[in-house]
């Protein structure tokens, strides 16, 4: 009995040990980024990447935020950070609203062929965006949106709808149809039912959808790199430019500070609403 319980204890101990090791593995890059963003460059180049700063400094942060040479001018990341927000907020709002309406129609007002239409919309989640880059560049040019923030908003809405529709459709599919019927007998019409009955009960999925879109659009690089110019570049493109610009000395500490700034909004969302983030991640890929 006591042997059994002591082997059990050793097994538990080993289990927790392994789990802790993996925690270190996942946290290590974040640790490296944070620690090295707070030390002078010389401490990094002298092989002290893992060590805590001997001399703590926020200069790299200040540098990355407002002084570093990113584009032609030494503006730091600030303008691009703002670009990203200007792009992400309208794009998320529009894609979410459209997705909610689509999901409502596709579950509660189905018609012949609506499942097939959903399948068509859904495929948009899976296409490699390389296949649309060339025509989209031309289309944006024709619409006069090339190289602008509204152009990026447009692109993200177009390819965000597939996801938001998927989320809301799956959520509303489980929403009791009897409620819709009851509202119909009560005399409510298409939009009244949506705004008075479904939407007030869509809190969780709206959060999931908003977080998913926010994270994806904020983190996007391909569209940002393809369809923006110096004035409309989002954060990810600016970060890459900062790091890849090989003129002069590599300021690793500034790069790390910049990387953290770029990661901060989505990390914050993850910390505050991780539960919803995970749910979105799961239902964005594992449906049903």
């Amino acid at each position, binding site marked *: 009995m006591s042997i059994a319980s002591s082997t059990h204890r050793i097994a538990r101990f080993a*289990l927790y040990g392994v*789990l802790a090791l*993996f*925690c270190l593995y*996942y946290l290590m*890059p*974040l640790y490296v980024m944070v620690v090295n963003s707070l030390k002078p460059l010389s401490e*990094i*180049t002298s*092989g002290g990447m893992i060590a805590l700063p001997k001399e703590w400094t926020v200069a790299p942060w200040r540098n990355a935020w407002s002084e570093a040479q990113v584009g032609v001018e030494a503006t730091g990341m600030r303008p691009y950070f703002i670009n990203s927000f200007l792009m992400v907020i309208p794009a998320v709002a529009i894609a979410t609203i*459209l997705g909610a309406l*689509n999901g409502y*129609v*596709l*579950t509660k*007002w*189905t*018609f*012949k062929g609506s499942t097939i*239409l959903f*399948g*068509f919309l*859904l495929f948009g989640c*899976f*296409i*490699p965006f*390389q296949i*649309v*880059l*060339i*025509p*989209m560049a031309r289309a944006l040019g024709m619409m006069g949106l090339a190289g602008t923030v509204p152009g990026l908003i447009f692109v993200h809405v*177009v390819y965000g*709808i597939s996801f938001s529709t998927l989320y809301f459709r799956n959520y509303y*599919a489980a929403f009791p*149809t009897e409620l819709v019927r009851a509202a*119909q007998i009560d005399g409510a019409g*298409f939009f009244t039912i949506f705004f008075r009955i479904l939407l007030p009960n869509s809190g969780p999925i709206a959060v999931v959808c908003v977080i998913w879109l926010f*994270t994806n659009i904020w*983190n996007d*690089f391909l569209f940002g*790199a*393809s369809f923006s110019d110096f004035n409309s570049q989002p954060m*990810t493109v600016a970060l*890459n430019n900062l790091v*890849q610009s090989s003129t002069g000395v590599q300021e690793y500490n500034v*790069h790390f500070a910049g*990387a953290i700034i*770029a*990661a901060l909004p*989505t990390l914050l969302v*993850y910390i505050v609403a*991780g539960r919803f*983030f*995970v749910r979105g*991640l*799961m239902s964005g*890929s*594992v*449906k049903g």
Partner: protein
Amino acid sequence: MAQVPEGGSALKFSKSKGDWLRDALPKLVLSPSVAISMIFVYGFILFTIYLAFSDSRILPSYGWAGLQNFQNLFTLRAWNIATINLAIFAILYIGICCALGLLLAILLDQKIRAEGFIRNIYLYPMALSFIVTGVAWKWILDPGIGLEAVVQGWGFENFEFNWIKDRDMAIYTIVIAAVWQTSGFVMAMFLAGLRGIDQEILRAAEVDGASTFALYRRIVIPQLRLAFMSAFVVLAHMAIKSYDLVIALTNGGPGIATTMPATFMYSYTFTRNQMGVGSASAVMMLMTIAAITVPYLWSELRGSKQ
């Protein structure tokens, strides 16, 4: 049983005069999204496919070139390297993510204290941009300041870890960073699968005297088939699309050693002015992804219909 199909055509009324709007309204609401999808997804795909058969260079051009672009594509050394890289990357990335994800999920499923906290740590990289991940790992793997320098600093003067500068090994550094970013997500998928297994079956197996190992091998893992399938589709699809991480981590280098189809497409289309070849490569990517996802979507949709 002849029951009303749930949500089927349940809410349709018979038609009457003046009520066409009521009947048409749902379709009207759906139509902008359908139109957008038709133009910007399907229309654009067709356009790109057309370009792949055209003589487009710096700008789209509509002269017919037949299979010329594809012939060029397959003879290009860069494309050859890109496809081999993709194969290496996809196999290792999917394999390691699944193995690691499954291992972590099973470990976390042992009634661990602070499970939620640990799970959050494993999963947070998924919230980061691939660019951020790329920047972090770029310097961690950099022999001048990163791991190699640190270990040498500890006194192991002969320690060498310069894969990122090594033409033959650089592709594996992309695997390292990508696995770091995504394996937590795969863990979450498997964990959800584990939690979905009927606890009574596990109890029954325990009563039957199955050891923990046998329990997982014979009962649990076979039931994760669906989670494996989803993980495979998601990971394969991410592998084929992977662009950001390559750009941030190695920028396709050293030389063109870590070129992938996605970076190939971008550089041939936008910097080398070979739009026809670029389009052809995009078509190849689409076909690969479609071969994986269309059967998956088809089965999902058919399942949800019943």
